[in-house]
């Protein structure tokens, strides 16, 4: 077991073609830290939804010259607890739920034990996962 924290940080243009590889990089990192099975799937699913939301919503109102990026930060501490953050420099879009949409945050809420959404400066989702053994 590792005593020090491990950190993965990724920053990419907020384009759909980068989402899969951000997810793959996260999976590689989590596997090395003994995440597996359903928990590995669930964390990956939640990350995928948060990343897709950045691509789909964060920069819709932004000027085209803006630096439209997605950020991801995964921190595994000495106890194996994962803090996962997905963030952007865009603007959160308040919206009424529409039929056939609005699954992303619902899925994330179903998975993440603790979720905070900070929209004070872009959008930052923070999810905490205790490692299951």
């Amino acid at each position, binding site marked *: 077991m590792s005593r020090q924290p491990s950190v993965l940080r990724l920053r990419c243009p907020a384009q*759909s073609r*980068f989402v899969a590889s951000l997810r793959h990089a996260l999976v590689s990192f989590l596997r090395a830290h003994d995440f597996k099975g359903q928990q590995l*799937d669930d964390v990956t699913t939640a990350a995928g939804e948060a990343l897709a939301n950045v691509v789909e919503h964060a920069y819709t109102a932004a000027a085209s010259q803006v630096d439209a990026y997605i950020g991801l930060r995964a921190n595994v501490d000495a106890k194996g607890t994962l803090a996962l953050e997905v963030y952007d420099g865009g603007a959160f879009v308040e919206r009424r739920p529409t039929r056939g949409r609005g699954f992303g945050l619902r899925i994330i809420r179903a998975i993440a034990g603790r979720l905070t959404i900070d929209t004070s400066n872009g959008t930052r989702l923070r999810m905490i996962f205790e490692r299951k053994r």
Partner: protein
Amino acid sequence: MNEAEPVKVIRLTGELEIGRKNEIRSTLRAPADGTPVLLDLAGVTYADSIALTELLRFCAEAQQVGQPVALVIQTPQFARLIQYAGLATVFKVFAEPAEALAYLTESPRQ
């Protein structure tokens, strides 16, 4: 399965995610004639809510022309995604193609 009631098979494999949205959308086109559709998703390794939205749209279009749709899903991540999204009762999901086929060709429908 008999000649009178053929089944159209649509297959998607790999990761059904945001980067493949257009491809998923164009693959999921409902035949206009009401032929039952077996959506073979057994080879899907990952799915996200973008894929779910396309599947929902496809099933709604199919329902409008009275076309039954059965999904074959074997990936735990995908099956759980549908649960988490609260769509468990919306899709007709089967683990085995034979079960899906039986549903499409044998069950009585209005």
